[in-house]
């Protein structure tokens, strides 16, 4: 179909000295549209770690499983894929601090002034997990975090949370805050991001997921919503069952 006026202006720019077209779209005559516009999400694929080393991945899985332990009804953080989520996030723009203001000087501010860290989350995980590993090995007979008994794992995590466990070269409390946030995000985000596998977290709480139409339900007060959760990638019922 027709090409928009912006292309006219862009092409005539070659003909006119100096050009009248900045590098920007000129919006006129009609609402812009092109096929394949927009940016649909790319679901995370299962597979090897993209960011974590083997030992790091195991540590994060173990941490996730203590922050969100398994119970008979709902898997824990590890089986729900929280470590996969964090791994993919660290390998991506969030881990790198893309989009944030990263110009110096980096000065220590008040808590109200927020994060003033040159190191992004990915770097913090690298440093934090390394420091955590050293701490565990030194306190628990050369065992990594993942190898500790659950009660010891909880002791370490609780110690980090309350500032009783100090990590070398890293703010342990801040690192713990980061991990607890990321684990929970992974647990409750859409499964396309690697966590909340099979929407287990959504099933646990009764959240119907990425739905858009509740017009027939807004008047139904105090009733359980019956439909299963759906991810942006769909749900099993979307695929016709073979006879």
């Amino acid at each position, binding site marked *: 179909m027709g090409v928009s006026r912006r292309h006219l202006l862009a092409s005539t720019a070659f003909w006119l000295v100096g050009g009248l077209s*900045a590098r920007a779209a000129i919006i006129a005559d009609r609402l*812009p549209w092109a096929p394949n516009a927009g940016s649909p999400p790319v679901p995370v694929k299962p597979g090897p770690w993209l960011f974590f080393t083997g030992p790091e991945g195991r540590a994060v899985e173990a941490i996730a499983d203590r922050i969100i332990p398994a119970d008979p009804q709902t898997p824990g953080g590890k089986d729900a894929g929280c470590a996969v989520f964090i791994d993919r996030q660290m390998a991506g723009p969030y881990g790198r601090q893309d989009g*944030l203001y990263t110009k110096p000087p980096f000065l220590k501010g008040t808590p109200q002034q927020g994060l003033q860290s040159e190191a992004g989350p990915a770097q913090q995980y690298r440093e934090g997990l390394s420091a955590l590993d050293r701490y565990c090995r030194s306190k628990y007979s050369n065992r990594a975090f993942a190898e500790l008994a659950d009660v010891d794992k909880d002791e370490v995590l609780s110690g980090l949370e309350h500032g009783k466990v100090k990590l070398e070269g890293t703010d342990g409390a801040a690192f713990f805050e980061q991990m607890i946030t990321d684990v929970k995000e992974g647990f409750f*985000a859409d499964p396309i991001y690697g966590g909340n596998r099979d929407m287990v977290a959504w099933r646990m709480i009764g*959240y119907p997921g*990425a*739905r858009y139409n509740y017009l027939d339900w807004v008047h139904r007060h*105090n*009733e359980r919503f019956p439909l299963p959760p759906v991810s942006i990638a769909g749900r099993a019922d979307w695929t016709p069952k073979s006879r």
Partner: protein
Amino acid sequence: MAHKLPKKDVVIIGLGWTGSIMAHELTDEGLDVIAIERGPWRDAPTQYPPNYAQDELRYRIRHELFLRPEQTTFTFRNKMDQTALPIRTWGSFMPPNGVGGGGVHWNAETWRFLPSDFVLKTHLTQRYGASFLPEDMTIQDWGVTYDDLEPHYDTFEYLCGTSGTAGNLRGKIQEGGNPFEGSRSRPYPTPAQAQPFSHTLFGKAARELGYKPFPQPSGNLSKAYTNPLGVRLGPCTYCGFCEWFGCGNYSKASPQTTILPVLVRKSNFTARDNSEVTRINIDRSGKRATGVTFVDTAGEEWEQPADLVILSAFTVFNVQLLLLSKIGEPYDPVANKGVIGRNFTHQTISTVNGFFDNKKFNFNPFIASGSIGMCIDEFNGDNFDHGPHGFVGGGYMGQVQTNGRPIQTTPVPPGTPTWGAAWKAAVRDNYLSSVVPGTGVHGSFYSYRDVYLDLDPTYRDRFGRPLMRITMDFHDNEIKQNAFLTDRFAEIIKAMGANQVAKVYRKAPYDATQYQTTHVCGGAIMGADRPTSAVNRYLQSWDVPNLFVTGASAYPQNAGYNPTGTLCALAYWSAAAIRNQYLKNPGPLVDA
């Protein structure tokens, strides 16, 4: 050396709500208008379609639709004796970017301010005496009245198809509406939205306590609507992905769903996206704007000359452009002189969460819209006697919970551990049976001498221009106001039948990391008197008569309501003055 473009009659900086309204009004007047927008084009079928818009991680947690601090940001400090540091990732407010501005991802809560809000200084002084007000409070009258703006509130509401129940229709109080609101000339264009369970229950509890609850006025429409421009909107489907998100099914009022389809078809309108205006150009006299300079994505500088300049960027960017273009006298808080940057304000927000018996209550919190909720206005503005309380101001309160998105909405009763098996069980047991209002108490934020905007001395943007520095903290007045309101709100939540209520008061110091609405206001305030305002009652710059500055930067202080309805009404009011007076006789509309 900037490339110079052919002259236009009007250049509009920023194509958000007020930019779109101005563009529409001035093109209707026959003027040749160009709008220059820093961010990209946005539209539902391509940028936020209803098959991937409902992504909490992407849009709420990672802020995808907002300005990237990398492109530009602000610095922040609480007090003047501190060093301001950059806001490296957004926290307490989220500046928009792109065509449609905040109108793309707002909640569409469409309020009017109270008549007394516009004459606040006079009103409060008359009622309580000047000594009742804190000495360093710098509130002012606006220079316009509610009656001046009423027809323009009406125009904006009918543009949007706002869904609501009138409370004061031509002076007569209406059952079911807000009895405190200013008189309106017509009912809302569409009926109020349906209220889900917890919102309805709040209304019932409030009524039983003697209050007069009413549905929050909503730009998420209760039914399909065609606005006066012929643009069609659909009915809101209560998806629960409203604020922070673009609306995928044409049911949230935004420039895209109300004005832009008609605007782009006009032969006398053009817009450029992905173009950042870096300066308003002034002639040698300093009294006339000649146009703007902007930079495209290749870093090339362009000059767009124009006879009339409309500055409609977000609040803080309005002030930044005025300062960087050397328009108006910068505010000096120590000397208490100057106007550009003074009277900067935000909002005083708190909430009370309620935990109910999960065998008796199922709230389905995921069924909601951005401006759902039953509210009461008894504690807003000067709707109650402040004498015994020792503070001024107030806000509406209500069960206005807009969503049940799980990353952010997994409340647990106070005392629950933050992780582990107990936490997980508490989340499971409380998700469907808790009430998490969010901005449950939506209080005013009055202006103070030491809360202001200026240019940062250290940190710069990618062009090397100084970032804006925000110096902001809560004063005792707002903290007292909030404590009182929060306690009242908690009473209603308890009366709903909660087993447990958790009050979350707003406490000082102001924390730039905790989200508290994006209702930052002021810095280029309007007023009747030139020495104490940046623009006159028509939003016309006192210093440069062919420059008008729209948006909430005009607010001398912020009231206890969401600001968008009022700033859009002001835009229509200003456009009318331009069309009916300014164009016939360009020059100052008000004698200084």
